[in-house]
């Protein structure tokens, strides 16, 4: 009987503990949630912001004769233990660079098995033979602009167990800006993101 009484008393506490956490909207500018050993959007934003500042400060995007460089996005590989869509970071960088007024990106170049970023640039050229379309708006031959610079990169991860039982995870985001005419790297950046946490945390 007494066991039943204790069980009845404990039941509300158990149920209360299972109450779901209330969903709240996060404003990136006032995000005070805890951080983990993995990478989240805050890490991507911070790394992207730093490489963009570094690139703008370096002057490598200042075209000597004025105007804007045409840049193509090359391969950005993920060598971490996490599943990362590299576009999440790269898109931030592209938007920031485009807004800087120093570069413009081309989306018409085939750089992966998926084809060009936007296949439409090539597809609309098939309208040249169509009698249904006013040819004034159809792209003529020789109007596409070839890229002058290429942006490529890599994500790296290195885990270390420390002497006090804690774990250190060093991520590294490397980015290279290559002059496509000469093949020379105009600018290179390496942005480390290091985290220290309990040893039992898994960083993937």
């Amino acid at each position, binding site marked *: 009987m007494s066991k039943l009484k204790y069980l009845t008393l404990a039941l509300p506490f158990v149920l209360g503990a299972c109450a779901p956490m209330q969903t709240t909207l996060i404003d990136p500018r006032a995000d005070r949630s805890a951080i983990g050993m993995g990478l989240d959007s805050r890490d991507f934003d911070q790394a992207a912001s730093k490489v963009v500042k570094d690139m703008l400060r370096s002057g490598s995007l200042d075209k000597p004769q004025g105007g804007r460089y045409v840049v193509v996005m090359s391969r950005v590989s993920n060598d971490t233990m996490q599943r990362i869509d590299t576009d999440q970071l790269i898109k931030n960088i592209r938007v920031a660079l485009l807004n*800087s007024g120093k570069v413009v990106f081309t989306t018409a170049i085939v750089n992966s098995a998926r084809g060009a970023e936007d296949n439409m640039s090539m597809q609309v050229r098939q309208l040249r033979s169509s009698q249904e379309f006013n040819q004034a708006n159809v792209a003529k031959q020789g109007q596409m602009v070839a890229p002058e610079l290429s942006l490529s990169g890599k994500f790296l991860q290195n885990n270390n167990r420390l002497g006090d039982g804690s774990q250190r995870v060093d991520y590294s985001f490397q980015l290279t800006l290559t002059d496509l005419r000469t093949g020379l790297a105009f600018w290179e950046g390496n942005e480390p993101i290091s985290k220290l946490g309990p040893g039992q945390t898994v960083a993937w």
Partner: protein
Amino acid sequence: MIRFFLVGVLIACSGCGTAPTVEVDPRVLIAPNTNVILDRIQVNAIGPVRGNIRLINMTATDLPIKQTTTWFNSIGQNINTLLSRPEKMIVPRFGDAYVELIAPTPDAVMFQVRVEADSPD
């Protein structure tokens, strides 16, 4: 009576003697209890705005902070940019840290930097 007055003057003067000089700039907002001090702000407004802000920590503990730089155009409109995302940094004990300023767009002419302690809720 005069004795008390003289003692008071001595205490007041000794208090003033050690007070550090703190730079105040309306473009830099440091939240209370952050414990970092604005040391100097250098801005080059010729061409795109660029510069840096030096923050110093006079305490014996490392201070994790978060800085957010908001950029404005010439008519005071907020510019939505990646460079306005909060940036976490640590001002080491008895050391300094720099907030780097680079105009994110050609029309960015004004900025405001907010510095606050970085601690999860």
